[in-house]
């Protein structure tokens, strides 16, 4: 899910840090939250939707210029198969 593969030295460093944080997260079990609803956004009360219409974006070259590898207007990736 994280889409990371760690080197051995990273595993060593991050293993300690991850366990330390997960231990720390267990502190939350001490507080009684039985009758509380979860908060997803602090102040948002309702969903606001935009009008369902399209807008034209013209700066496509600027977007493509950030691609690591480009052939004409196509982004190059390694072979899929």
């Amino acid at each position, binding site marked *: *899910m*994280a*889409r*990371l*593969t*760690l*080197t051995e030295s*990273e595993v060593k*460093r*991050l293993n300690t*840090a*991850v366990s*330390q*944080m*997960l231990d*720390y*997260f267990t*502190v*939350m*079990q*001490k*507080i009684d*939250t039985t009758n*509380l*609803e*979860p*908060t*997803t*956004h*602090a*102040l*948002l009360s309702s*969903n*606001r*939707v*935009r009008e369902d219409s399209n807008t034209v974006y013209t*700066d496509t070259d*600027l*977007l493509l*210029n*950030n*691609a*690591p*590898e480009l052939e004409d207007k196509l*982004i190059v*990736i*390694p*072979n*899929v198969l």
Partner: protein
Amino acid sequence: MAEFDPKWKKLREDRSFYLSWESETLKSDEAIGSFLQFDPSALLGEIVPGPLSGIPFAVKDNIAVKGFRLTCASRMLESFVSPYTSTAVARLQAAGGVVVGKTNLDEFGMGSSTENSALKKTVNPWDASRVPGGSSGGTAAAVAAGFVPFGLGTDTGGSVRQPAAFCGVYGLKPTYGAVSRYGLVAYASSLEVIGVMSRSVSTIETVFSIMKGIDPMDHTTLEGAQPKKPSGTIRIAVPRECEEHGLSAEVGKTLAETKRTLAKLGYEIVDCSIPSLEYVVPAYYTIATAEASANLARYTGIRYGTRAIGAENPDDLVTRSRNEGFGDEVKLRILLGTFVLRSGFQDQYYTKAQKVRTAIRNDMAKIYEHANLVLMPVFPTPAFAFGDSGLDSFEQKKADIFTCTANLAGLPALSFPAGIEAGLPIGMQLMAEPFAEKLLFDVIARFEKEFPAPEIPVKIGINHEEHEAHEGRRRR
């Protein structure tokens, strides 16, 4: 409206003044390291009339400004050039403001010292052996050093207020949704906001009033009703838990002095309690890492960003690019985030944290039934030292205890310089009800008259002997 030092307008009127300012800023910043990119040439172009006409400002490098790079201080985006401008910056530009540079930060905003930048080291302008704070450390250092009259940062768990406190400037974290996040590179979307730093409260008020408001590009923007101006004496509540969470002697002393000064100004100081304070940091990191793991999934090395060389297939390309592009802290938070979101663990971590978040909101709402503002320190210590003599990464996280409450509850908070101890500035913060920024400005503008933003005694980067000689001449 804020009044700016006339020197800022002189920059565009007097070419030789501009050139010497540019080279002096570059030279001083060699020692401080606040900017990742400094390009003030737009000051020489056409200037839009408005309240900020020709006023230069700095922008944290996780906020998009068209034509400038947008690196997030990450190898992943090292050469990314922004194709568009964030709403907050576009509004300041429409009011005449001019972006002169992009400032350093902890990679993707993840950190409290700017040490997690993959691209540059930034030091505290008060003392080069100490961190400027983070994650908006570059903006805080640039504002404190006087390079710009104001700058933008972002605050997810304290990232505007804490560096502002470490560098002796004001730092506003607005109400969640008051300022559009369009063009802010997402880290923890339900917590973060764009904020302002300056050496003047009225500048912060002006900049905030220009940036805020509904934006069709960000559906979480809100136009909250201005709370009624409190009638009678304004009550400022101080949570008794603050003292229980290990304040350093310097911060404890400044908190006591701040209470005295506010009382002298006619405010009523009352005691209060945030029973959930103990749980805010674990809840904050659970939510922030969960959201980060989802937000950072977009970095694949395919359409933009750093791409690893030699990958054999698209999956390999994505994994290798992420391995090479992200630093340790970012990897740690992605791993934690994916862990707390794993099926079977959600109730224990993510949902639990969201319920704790409700408890915190309830605790704060209860306080505001009998008080108008809450006073807390920003950080338990003054700016700490780099490396092993400072705070380790875990200690830094635990020290977010006083700042992340405002993010979890969506409240506005303003940190302000309130003392100098052992040569370092100490910051305090006031927290208000949603959309009550005006009350923060009014109260802290009065405090500012008692204790203005301190001047840095000796500027880093200026030859010490020359400085002494210069001071000597001035005294004579």
